[in-house]
Every structure is written in C-alpha cells, then in structure tokens.
C-alpha cells in the first residue's frame, strides 16, 4: 500500500529562556550568516530535550531526526512522557509551525484537533459557532449545513443550540467542539488528548466515534495520549518519543511496554533524587520495593497474593504522630484503595535516623488486572513531611483472588471477599 504521510528527518529547535536583547544579537548573527549564504550557526548547537536536566545551552532540540511513514487507514499512537516532543510533532504535522530541518510530505488533507472548540466566540450561539468552528477546521459551509442536525444530535446540546456559547457549561462547550470535529472528513486526522475531557458517557461516545473513523471509514489518524487504555483500543501502530528522539516505531503493545518500562526504570532508580516532591525535606523517602511471600522482588503482581512493600527513608529530626499513606492509583488517576497506619494500627514516633525501613503488608492483594502506581505520603504532627507521586509502578496480571480458580472479569474497583447464601 502506498504511503499517505511521510516524515523525513524532521527536527525542531527551540530557544530556552526569554526573548530579549540576548535573542536580538543571535538573530542579527543568524541574519548575517544568511545574507552571506552560510548555514545557521545555531543549528550546530542545542541540548537534548531532557526536561529535568539543568539547562546548559541556549537552544534545545524538541525533536531530533524523526522519520516515520503512515499508510492510509492506519491509526498511529504517539506516546511519550510530558515534554518528550509529542505536541511539537503534532504542531509540525498540522502546519502550525514549520520544522527547523527535514520535511513532512502528505498526499491528503490534514485536519488537526489539538483542542476542541477552537475559535468559539462566546457571544455567538451554538449553531453559529458550529459553522465558525467547522470552517476554521476546514469544512465548507455546504458540508456543515448537510451535517448540522447530526452534529447537534451528537453533541447532546439541542436545548441550548440557539443560546450564546458563553452561557454553556465547560462540559457542554467541549461536547459541542468535539461534535464538530468528529464530523470532519479529512484524509488525515491529527488528534491530541481531547478525549480526556467530558463525562464518562461522552468519553465512551468519543472513543466509539474515533474507532468508527479509523476502522469503519478507513481514515488515517494520528493520536497522542497518555492513556494507554485508549492507545491500545484505538491504535494499530505506535511511535514512542523520548527526549525528542523516536525511540520505537511499530507494534502498539510493544510500544506501550517500552514506554512503561522506560518510565518505571527511570522513576524507581531515582526516588531518592527526585525533586517533584512536597514536604519539609527533613524526612525523605529514599526507596520502595515490593516482595512476594517467597521474598522475591516483583513488579508484576497477582491479585489475592500476599505482598510486602518495603519503604526506605531517612529522617533528620524527631517526628511525632507519624502516619505513612500509600495510595494505589490506576492509570486513569483513580485511587483504588489506600493503606495508612493511622487507621489500620496507630500513629508512631520516629527518631532521627540515617536510614530506616517501613514495611507495609497486604495479606490479600485486592486489585484486578491493570497498570497501577503508588502515591506515597508521610504525615506527622507538623503536617506533610514528604509526598511523592508515581513512586512505584506495577501491573497486576491475573491471580486467583477467590480461590475458585476463576478470575473476575471486571477491571473496575477492588476485589473483596464475599459469600452468597441461597435459601
């Protein structure tokens, strides 16, 4: 099959810091090189796009030498951490800004959906905004007119359609915006995490529509998301970005594993060095690990088994009424359950200590299949001592919670022991 979209060696360089006299001298220098027909001197410099590293240069490569091809009907999922270059890539694809080097070639019209409801005017009514927004996204008036009833029905805002958009709730605005976007008919659709908004019912509708677009109508879609669930559901191919480089291109599941694996390793190794924490700094979590009943370190857990979470810490002052809390969070950010010694046993006193270990024992692990992370917090009589998210990422891969040899299918909530009595 032929290729509908081709990216060749695309790179994008950005300047760090603010615009001021410093940038003016660089601009003049660049211009001087340009009129003499020489190459831009600042293209040779530029740091790797690592968000947490110290800024050592004035320029950064948000993207570096990205190559990929997309065939018609493919749904490409673009995944990566915050600041890995996903949105920059989408901006280049949707012609909002040009690459610094390289080129993108396409055989189809690209419509981008980096935000829903782009260009909504608050004073105009819902109906007028459908036309305006549709036209901004590249539809013609006749196209919109032929679909207007469908769009209104899809948005579910029929009652308010002739009311100015400024009277809408934010959810309604999103619904209307997505309804317009969903009825776009370009050959290539570029979508950025817009599905993460709206209520559960609407999200389901939106995902359904996206699936229809790609499978039913053979539309080519490029999709960016942090939600591995929807990536898995929608995409046929994945592109993993890391620090502006393309790390992996290919199978979706493999891509997701690479992304999660990278994420886990990196976070875990650095727990003691991480700076994205709240608290007073005198108490610090340094490490966390999980062992099963055979004292083996594990990252893939089984529901119903016993696990011990070993939490290392260091403490510089005496603390009273200490409570350690572990929040078990799923990949949608929902807290499934928590462990806190304040309730399950009692608060304790901590002495000054160079290093210590806290053990949290969960005799019958209650989570169903899925990917989870732990959000760890230490409270004392003084307030929050240390608080850090995503300290430990793990997945649950089955298990026999009820000792019946049967696995619960639903992945929501937690598993609890229960008995049925039938008379």
């Amino acid at each position: 099959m032929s290729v509908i979209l081709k990216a060749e060696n695309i790179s994008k360089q950005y300047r760090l810091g603010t615009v001021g006299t410093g940038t003016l001298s660089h601009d003049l220098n660049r211009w001087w090189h340009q009129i003499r027909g020489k190459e831009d001197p600042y293209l040779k410099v530029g740091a790797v796009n690592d968000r947490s590293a110290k800024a050592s240069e004035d320029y950064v490569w948000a993207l570096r030498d990205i190559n990929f091809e997309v065939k018609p009907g493919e749904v490409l999922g673009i995944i990566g951490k915050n600041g890995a270059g996903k949105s920059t890539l989408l901006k280049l694809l949707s012609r909002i800004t040009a690459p610094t080097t390289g080129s993108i070639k396409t055989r189809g019209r690209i419509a981008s959906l980096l935000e829903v409801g782009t260009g909504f005017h608050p004073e105009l009514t819902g109906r007028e905004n459908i036309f305006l927004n549709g036209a901004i996204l590249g539809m013609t008036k006749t196209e919109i007119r032929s679909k207007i009833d469908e769009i209104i029905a899809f948005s579910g805002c029929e009652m308010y359609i002739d009311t100015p958009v400024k009277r809408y709730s934010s959810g309604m605005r999103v619904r209307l915006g997505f309804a317009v976007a969903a009825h776009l008919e370009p050959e290539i659709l570029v979508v950025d995490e817009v599905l993460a908004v709206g209520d559960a019912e609407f999200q389901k509708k939106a995902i359904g529509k996206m699936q229809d677009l790609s499978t039913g109508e053979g539309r080519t879609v490029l999709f960016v998301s942090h939600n591995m669930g929807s990536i898995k559901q929608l995409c046929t191919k994945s592109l993993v970005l890391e620090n502006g480089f393309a790390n992996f291109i290919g199978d979706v599941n493999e891509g997701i594993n690479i992304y999660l694996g990278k994420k886990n390793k990196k976070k875990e190794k650095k727990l003691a060095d991480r700076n994205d924490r709240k608290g007073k700094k005198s108490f610090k979590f340094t490490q966390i690990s999980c062992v099963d009943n055979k004292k083996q370190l594990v990252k893939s857990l089984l529901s119903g088994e016993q696990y011990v979470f070993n939490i290392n810490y260091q403490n510089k002052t005496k603390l009273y009424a200490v409570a350690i809390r572990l929040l078990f969070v799923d990949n949608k950010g929902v807290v499934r359950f928590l462990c806190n010694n304040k309730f399950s046993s009692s608060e304790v006193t901590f002495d000054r200590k160079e290093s210590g270990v806290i053990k949290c024992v969960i005799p019958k692990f209650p989570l169903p299949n899925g990917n989870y992370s732990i959000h760890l917090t230490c409270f004392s009589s003084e307030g929050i001592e240390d608080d850090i998210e995503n300290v430990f990422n793990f997945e649950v891969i089955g298990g026999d919670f009820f000792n019946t040899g049967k696995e619960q299918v639903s992945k929501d909530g937690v598993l609890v022991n229960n008995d049925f009595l039938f008379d």
Partner: protein
Amino acid sequence: MNHTEDNWLYEISPKRKLIDLNFKEIWRYRDLLVLFVKRDITTVYKQTILGPLWFFIQPLFTSVIYTLVFNNIANIPTGEVPSFLFNLTGITAWNYFNECFSSTSNTFNQNAALFGKVYFPRVIMPMSKVIAGLVKFGIQLLILIIFYAYFLWQGFSISPNTNILLFPVYVLLMALMGLGFGMIISAMTTKYRDLTVLIGFATSLLVYVSAVPYPVSQVEEKMPKLAWLVKMNPLTQIIEGFRYMILDEGVYTSLGLLYTIAVSIFIFILGLLIFNKTEKNFIDTV
C-alpha cells in the same frame, strides 16, 4: 490509486519560496472568510444599547471638535465648503484606513491562541478585518450623505465632481494601504514588541501629516518648506482626493493618484511577503 514517488499534495518544510501564496487554498477557505466577517460585524456591539449607533457617534464628535479647534479657533479656511462637512469627509476616509490598519496590525499577537491550535491560511484573518471594516465605513458614509444633504438644503453650493467615478479606487487604495501596513507591523511585532508602543501614538500623529484636519493648499501657503512631507505622504493624496471628488474642493493631480496607487500596491505586496514569511514560525516566538 497509483502514486508516483513525487506525487505529494503538499510538503511542510523549513524553506519557503519568496512568493508563496496559495490562492487555491485561500479560495477553499472562502466560507471561513465570510464567517469571520460576519462574526466581526455581529459581535462588536453585542450587549450595548446603542449598538451600531456608536459607528455614528465617533466621527460626529471628532468632526465637531476639529471644527471648533481648527476652524473656529485656529481659523483654517475650508473654501466654499462648510468646515464641519469638510472635517467629516476627511475623517470618514481616514477612519476606514485607520480601521484597516489598526485591526490588522495585531493579527499575530491577538490570534496566537487560535493560530497555535489550528492551521488555515493566516491571511484570511486580516482580509476579513478589512472587509468587515467596509460595513462600518458604509455606515459612516451614510451619515456623511445625510449631512451633505442637510448642507445642500441649507443653500451651500457643494457638489461632487466627475472624479466620484474613482470612488471604488480610493476605497481599494485605503484598504490596500491599511492592510499592507497592518500586515507589516503585525509581522514585525511578533518577536519584539517594541513597535506596538510606537504604533499607539504614531497613528494619532499621522492624522496631522495626512492633511485630515486641513486642506493641502494651507500647508503650501503657510509652511512651504515642509509641504513636501505632507504631499509625499500617500495618505494625503487619498484624503485630499477623497474630499476633492465629494466636495469639489482641494488639489487633485493624476500624477499624485498614480503615485499613490504605486505606493499602495508596493506596500501591500511587501506586507504579504513579510506576513507570509512570518506566519510559518511566529508561534514559536510570539
């Protein structure tokens, strides 16, 4: 479908030809142009009581003030024509140029949020402003006609001359010049905002160099050394020519008109070129 290797619809790359206006694409987005124009017209005076009446009030008050200051206090003669009508005519023309210029001169900065999310030919935005400005201009022209009729009824001997046939040319010149300058300024203020400060007071001073509150003949008479400055200003030619065709009062030369046409087209094309060069990457530095 059988694609050859180079059969691409378009290519996104850092290099851009000097003149790279995709007219086909602009034509495809014509509905958007119409909708932007509609939006601009209908939303300006939403939730105001007087609504479009505000279009009348600004030129009327300005004309009254000009008449009081320049004609009554400073005694600038306006020939056969009543001073108020003289000022109103000049202001009507000036306002359209000013509207075109000021509404397009912040295109990039004002629409950064929209331009940063979706692509459409950027030039649609300033074009829509210029077209939407025509409505305001039309309304102000109406008020001019009403006062014209009133002064005729009062017995003043005023009448338009055959130059009135050039009316569309003058409107087009004002639009081209306003749009051209607006696009240049818009492109130049995306990275360094210094110019925005200048523009604020420059336009209000430009009124005086463009012969809005006085006839060109007065400058020649009273400041012969500086008259060239006023006369070389293409805007002066437009304002004076506009007054000449409507009031049959003032200086008109075909050479002056040709000069203005040439300058306007030059400014417009220069504006387009700079605008096009900027639109590609402005979102990174805005």
